[in-house]
């Protein structure tokens, strides 16, 4: 079903290499693929986006209004040799009129350690949670769940090392851990000499008969944070102040996914149910950096949590519909309530909620058109968000995760 196409040859010529020759006649080496993602967003609210009770960072936000490009990625991957696999994903995006290339992922992974062991090194998406490891182009909705937006700035990725082990058991059991730099949101400061964050994860999964498959995951992440900056509470008056958090941070989560297809044949109909819950505990200090020598500050002891539940149903070949519900809650305390509020940590008595409806059509496995509507109660004023999206993939497109 997948095959190598002439675009790969063209790309390889552009890249000035002759490496894209058929290896064993079975495909190009390296595999090159291009993901094209474009959107149109319509909003009701003109106000800036915020998520009361959460300090936003990373890519968190509702995206630009009107026509704009999403995640356009160039992915190059291959087995390096008999021991290593390597992959790089570069995102090309415009930021304020300038085209920027960002290294989304660049990692190597062992293939042949054996005994179920795999070591990965470089920049990669953390294996915590379920959705976190998946590329946005394989998400079932155009945007991340609110809890991912609130805690991770959409997705948790970092530079470091991951070790994982798959047990030789009937039921799938995978254990793993990561130790990473801790510089990117939601960490910050690359503390402890550039190894300031770490995580642990467990995944268990199996089948129920031929028609159902499931997986449960438990994960934990923690970091020592020095000066993690984020967007604060928006207000029109006063100088620009950037909240900066220092202290420790712990996130624990549980994720669940269940898939059904009649006789395990997803060609005609299939159903997917997925839910995740995360809770974050932080204790430290927030400083409102306004450029002065004596910035305002407060102690901060916070708890933020949230979950989402989503289901996607393919009712005939090519067509799917989906429904997602998001809900967040927070309880943040500190010595100076006003500063907490300016840092965006006062939830203003609001529990963010969102209901999202999605319908998409995939002409082939490589092209998808999506229409999505969300009633977004992230903050006081509910927003109606309409999104049109295309996601297309060119070139050799690798297998997806479960």
């Amino acid at each position: 079903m997948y095959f190598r196409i002439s675009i790969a040859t063209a790309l390889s010529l552009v890249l000035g290499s002759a490496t894209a020759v058929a290896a064993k006649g079975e495909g190009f080496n390296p595999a090159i693929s291009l993901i094209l993602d474009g959107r149109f967003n319509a909003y009701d609210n003109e106000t800036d986006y915020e998520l009361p009770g959460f300090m936003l960072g990373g890519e968190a936000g509702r995206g630009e209004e009107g026509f704009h490009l999403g995640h356009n990625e160039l992915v190059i991957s291959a087995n390096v040799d008999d021991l290593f696999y390597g992959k790089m994903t570069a995102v090309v995006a415009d930021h304020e009129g300038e085209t920027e290339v960002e290294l989304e992922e660049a990692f190597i992974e062992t293939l042949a350690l054996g005994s179920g062991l795999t070591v990965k090194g470089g920049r990669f998406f953390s294996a915590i949670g379920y959705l976190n490891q998946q590329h946005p182009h394989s998400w079932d909705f155009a945007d991340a769940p609110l809890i991912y937006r609130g805690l991770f700035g959409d997705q948790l990725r970092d530079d470091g090392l991951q070790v994982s082990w798959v047990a030789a058991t009937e039921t799938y059991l995978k254990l793993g851990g990561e130790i990473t730099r801790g510089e990117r949101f939601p960490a910050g400061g690359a503390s402890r000499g550039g190894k300031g964050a770490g995580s642990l994860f467990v995944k268990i999964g199996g089948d129920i008969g031929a028609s159902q498959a499931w997986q449960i995951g438990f994960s934990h992440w923690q970091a020592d944070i020095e000066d993690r900056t984020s967007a604060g509470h928006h207000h029109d008056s006063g100088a620009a102040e950037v909240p900066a958090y220092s202290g420790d941070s712990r996130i624990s989560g549980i994720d669940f996914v269940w898939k059904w297809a009649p006789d395990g044949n997803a060609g005609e109909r299939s159903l997917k149910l997925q839910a995740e819950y995360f809770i974050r505990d932080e204790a430290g200090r927030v400083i409102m950096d306004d450029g002065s020598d004596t910035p305002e500050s407060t102690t901060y002891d916070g708890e933020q949590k949230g979950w989402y539940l989503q289901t996607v149903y393919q009712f005939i070949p090519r067509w799917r519909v989906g429904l997602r519900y998001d809900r967040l809650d927070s309880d943040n305390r500190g010595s100076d309530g006003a500063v907490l509020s300016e840092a965006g940590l006062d939830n203003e008595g609001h529990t963010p909620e969102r209901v999202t409806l999605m319908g998409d059509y995939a002409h082939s496995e490589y092209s998808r058109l999506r229409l999505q509507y969300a009633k977004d109660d992230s903050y006081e004023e509910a927003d109606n968000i309409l999104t049109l999206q295309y996601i297309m993939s060119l070139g050799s497109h690798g297998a997806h995760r479960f």
Partner: protein
Amino acid sequence: MKRTRCLVLLVMGLGLSQASSARLNVFACEPEWASLAKALGGELIAATSATTARQDPHRIEARPSLIAKVRRADLLVCNGAELEIGWLPMLQRQAGNRKVLPGQAGYFEAAEQVERLGIPEKVDRSMGDVHASGNPHVHLDPRRVLKIASALSERLMSLDPSNTGHYRSRLDDFTHHWQQALERWQRIAEPLKGARVVVYHQDWDYLFDWLQIVKAGSLEPKPGLPATAGHLAKLRQSLMEEPASAIVYTRYQNPKAAQRLSQLTGIAALELPYTVGGGEGVTDLFSLFDETLKRLLQVVP
């Protein structure tokens, strides 16, 4: 300290339980290859298939249960020629089992052992689901199955050299019976020669090549793309001009398009087993061909 000792005992226990089951653990990607492995290995191997006859081998998810199976496998017996490219590489990457990686003795590709049909001169996705290494569905040509059997048997011998005699005698036995069956099949299939048959997907090319059946069209407008009303109308037009004997499809394909075309043209829609488990009484490769020929002969005059 006590806990460490428990852990050591546990690990030893796991190790021992693995050692005591000396059987080769075979993970077959499709039922036909699980069946062939069982025929060649007998009681010395434990074979499971990742897919069933009701599942489209192109479209399988890299499920947790499959990762767990690949983790414990001594040998993967897969079709190859990119049929499983959407899921097998992910299983191999995730399982952390070096024995079954490409290039290792524990990875066997059936299509690799034989000459393939339909190797395209150029591949472009506008052509639909086309494989650069040719049509992968090689198992429906019994002559090719024989070659694959002999290569697979050799692989079993190299993985388990102490039982070479066992594998050799089973291969001889299989070859003997297969050749007898092949003669019989060729004899009874004589009337099928030159028959025109409409297919759902290009999975029957090797069967048709062997039996000299003519492919009179495909329900998929392009390989891998579902049938459309417009395409069925075109097919009907061409079948009016030059009729066919049957419209064949298999269990994992939706019968609606075949039945619709059958209504439009009066040509019989026929479900064929395609693989082991694909029909009543189709329990091994022998009965797969017996049943396939039986059903084709019922509609071809």
